[in-house]
């Protein structure tokens, strides 16, 4: 077996050195009747070639985003990732190192985490960011717990524009941790009144912008009300590229900003691994979950970096920790930070403009079409349309014509009366001919409908 360096002779020599007759002697603590003696119900080991054949065949049964005109978003976005990113993250020294517990020999990891934290703080307009969470949804749940700790209150108010899966993640953790959560009804026109839902036990208000339907939300006025009532405003951003063009949540008064960082540097990968962004104000840093990297000096006075403020974490505080989080998304942070570095401010802003312009072009083309309404007044690179007929049927017919046209709102929100809504994302990967294909496919899918 190609991954096992020991030979049978090695094993025999080693057992002799240990002073036992056979390998079973080393498993003597396992109750004898529990030791598995029969072979596992698997085939024997396979060559690289055989494994590649099997997996390539499975992969071939999926439609890759790059193969078709692709307009699916809602929390994960198809972007172009530069070749340098994937090359660099596969460097052995990055790929096969662990959490930087020994700072003298992990300065590479620590320095990129410090750079990541600085980039995330700048993008979100906040004072300080951590070294990442699992993803945006788990980061949102952690932000709610953090707000409870800071305010000593136990009730969260969730905007109806928050991604429905994020709502479910927060609701699940809150129910299990005996906290309260109120989520407002989803409204494609973003007319909700979150402020009215605040009561004396409310710790935080959670608002996503752009929201799940693509609407941009101005948080400034809500932030003022929240602060007057001692409530924290948690802003959620699921499309990180939007931060290149939009006013930052920090500038609008958010106290905690959570983001899904997948769009920058990371592949779609069917939902994971992704990278959660988490940023806040200086005064709350000790209530933050997750790892933090800080600057210091070594014994010769040279600048270096270490994991710091780790007394917040589970390995020291145990049951009093701020969170049970242990792993971060190290390699995904690295991909984020390399992509961000390659973009720079100029590249990021331009990329964001291309995304927005592409979306505007499509929205404009659709607004003259019979049987289709574009519902958003504002959007970044994603908007919602109402179609004549069932959105799932329309998307199915578009898929038959080779276009993956978006996400039906009813997949995220079944039973909410949103059966005719499609959420459509446009990024820089959608060229003119992709938009033309979308329009053609949608038009013929509507005509082919039963209505």
């Amino acid at each position, binding site marked *: 077996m190609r*991954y096992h*360096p020991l030979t049978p002779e090695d094993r025999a020599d*080693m057992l002799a050195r*240990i002073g*036992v007759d056979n390998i079973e002697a*080393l498993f003597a*603590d396992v*109750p004898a009747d529990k030791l598995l003696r029969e072979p596992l119900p*698997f085939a024997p*080991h*396979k060559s690289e070639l055989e494994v*590649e054949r*099997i*997996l390539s065949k499975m992969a071939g*049964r*999926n*439609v*890759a985003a*790059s193969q078709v005109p692709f307009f699916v978003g809602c929390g994960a976005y198809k972007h172009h990732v530069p070749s*340098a990113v994937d090359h660099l993250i596969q*460097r*052995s*020294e990055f790929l096969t190192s*662990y959490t930087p517990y020994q*700072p003298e*020999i992990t300065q*590479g*990891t620590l320095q990129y985490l410090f*750079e990541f934290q*600085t980039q995330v703080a*700048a*993008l979100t307009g906040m004072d300080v960011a951590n070294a990442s969470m699992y993803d945006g*949804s*788990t980061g949102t749940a952690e932000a709610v717990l953090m707000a409870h700790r800071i305010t000593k209150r136990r009730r969260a108010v969730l905007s109806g524009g928050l991604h429905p*899966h994020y709502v*479910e993640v927060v609701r*699940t953790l809150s129910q*299990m941790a005996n906290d309260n959560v109120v989520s407002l009804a989803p409204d494609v026109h973003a007319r909700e009144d979150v402020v009215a839902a605040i009561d004396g036990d409310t710790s935080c208000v959670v608002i996503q912008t752009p929201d799940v339907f693509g609407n941009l939300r101005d948080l400034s006025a809500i932030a003022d009300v929240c602060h007057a009532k001692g409530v924290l405003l948690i802003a959620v951003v699921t499309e990180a590229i939007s931060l290149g063009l939009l006013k930052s949540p920090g*500038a609008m008064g958010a106290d905690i900003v959570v983001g899904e960082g997948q769009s920058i540097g990371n592949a779609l990968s069917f*939902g*994971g691994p992704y990278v959660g962004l988490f940023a806040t104000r200086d005064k709350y840093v000790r209530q933050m979950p997750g*790892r933090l990297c800080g600057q*210091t000096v070594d*014994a*010769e006075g040279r600048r*270096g970096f270490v994991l710091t403020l780790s007394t917040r974490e*589970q390995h020291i505080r*145990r*049951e009093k920790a701020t969170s*049970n989080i242990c*792993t971060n998304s190290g390699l995904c942070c690295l991909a984020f*930070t390399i992509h961000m*570095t390659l*973009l720079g*401010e*100029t590249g990021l802003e331009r990329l964001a403009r291309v995304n*927005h312009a592409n979306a*505007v072009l499509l929205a404009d083309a659709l607004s003259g079409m019979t049987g289709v309404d574009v519902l958003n007044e504002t*959007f970044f690179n994603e908007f919602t349309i109402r179609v004549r007929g069932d959105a799932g049927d329309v998307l199915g017919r578009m898929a038959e014509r080779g276009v993956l046209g978006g996400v039906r709102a009813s997949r*995220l929100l079944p039973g909410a009366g949103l059966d005719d809504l499609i959420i459509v994302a446009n990024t820089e990967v959608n060229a003119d001919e992709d938009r033309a294909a979308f329009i053609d496919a949608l038009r013929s899918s509507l005509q082919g409908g039963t209505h």
Partner: protein
Amino acid sequence: MLHTQARHTKATDHQMQAKQTFTRNRGLDLEEPLLFEIGRAEVTGIDVEEPATTKTRLGRLERKEPIGLPGLSEPEAIRHYVRLSRMNAAIDANTYPLGSCTMKHNPRLNEKMARLAGFGDIHPLQPQSSVQGALALIEALAKNLLDLTNMSAVAMSPKAGAHGELCGMMAIKAAIIARGEEASRRTVLVPDSAHGTNPATAALLGFEVKSVPADADGDVHLDAAKALMGPDVAAIMLTNPNTCGLFERDIVEIARAVHEARGYFYCDGANFNAIVGKVRPGDLGVDAMHINLHKTFSTPHGGGGPGAGPVVLSERLAPYAPVPFIVRDGEALRLVEHTEGTHSFGRMTAFHGQMGMFVRAYAYILSHGSDGLRQASEDAVLNANYVRACLADLMSQPFGERPCMHEALFDDAWLKGTGVTTLDFAKAMIDEGYHPMTMYFPLVVHGAMLIEPTESESLAALDLFTATLRDLAMSARRGETERFTGAPYLAPRRRLDETGAARKPVLKWSPPVPIRDAAE
């Protein structure tokens, strides 16, 4: 004719010490500034096309101020991150015996497979008919995990070990709520030797944590555990093999006791890699166990993540598994994404889990097969016991000559009087080119040194490693304390001031204050 240009190839001064250089580089060891000190806002390493001219639909929310994000051209960026990479220890370069973390070889085939467009470039919300191959892979991996554990169901979505632990404990809580015993069953028993995530998880869910002591052999104290069992006990959280690297000998007895008290048995599966193919947790009475795919199935650790933490569940807990999960509709596979009509306790994460890790883990299982999986466990245990045998005369073992599983545990009793601590010893290993073992964990052992060689190490590599540790140990005993207390001397950095970092946290780069302003 005499050749006057022949050059000496040896250094003329054999005593020459490393000197301070102009660049502060040391040969191939290159110093590297922060991105923010070398990048410029107007530089980009990506040629983005010209945006089409359109009106905007941004309302009044367009950004007006600069963000403060410098860029680098592609050659500069490559150089920056390549230089950073070279300051890192890595399993690809040398033995990385970090106990409990399982730093084993990461097969490159698995990286290639995860990057196939059909896996890496598919969206979690595209039509399910267009991702049947991906669902089939998740289903196949899930079945493999069930076969290896003899359990009833598996929740695939948790993003890491601690997240899996949270998922498993939520399933237990959901089962207790369903029994109407939420108010009375509030205690979770956790051994002193447990990973810190265990009590943190239990506390997060509102349980009261009670500690169970270890006995003199390093096992959970059976009588103490039994004495704590009662109608208030929701669960016991046990790591097996435990954090001391030992198989819990009374595990079946403990499982029976918690079941008799009508509680549940949560097993922390962080050390499952020692027993894959040798013993199945389901046969031991486990009700829930997370599996760290990055440990047991060798998905890369990548500087601390990403991980993946699927949770296997017993029949009693299976109905409460979180969404999404996969069901079969005739020929097709279908994701159940909402809890309506199920007993599911809810949702752990936005999408379906760590697909990139699933592909790697499945490729690992296919590559190893029935024979290779069992061999991996046996070799991991063999290597750890070999390290133990090679060092036992010099370094003290807290639990005597008992065989270990996949990691060998030493304490610091043998260092007493040398002036060298566990930390110093570990730092001296760095000068010898090794990443240190896990230190000061588990907490139940004083000055713990936990060595996990994994099955990836050859006999020659182990012999050099143990010879190095023997040399260091004898050096410490001879009183050569300066080799330890000032170490490392040869790493990219000497010891770092962690106290200063924590007292005055600097958590991001800030532009230097101009001298003119600073003087005012």
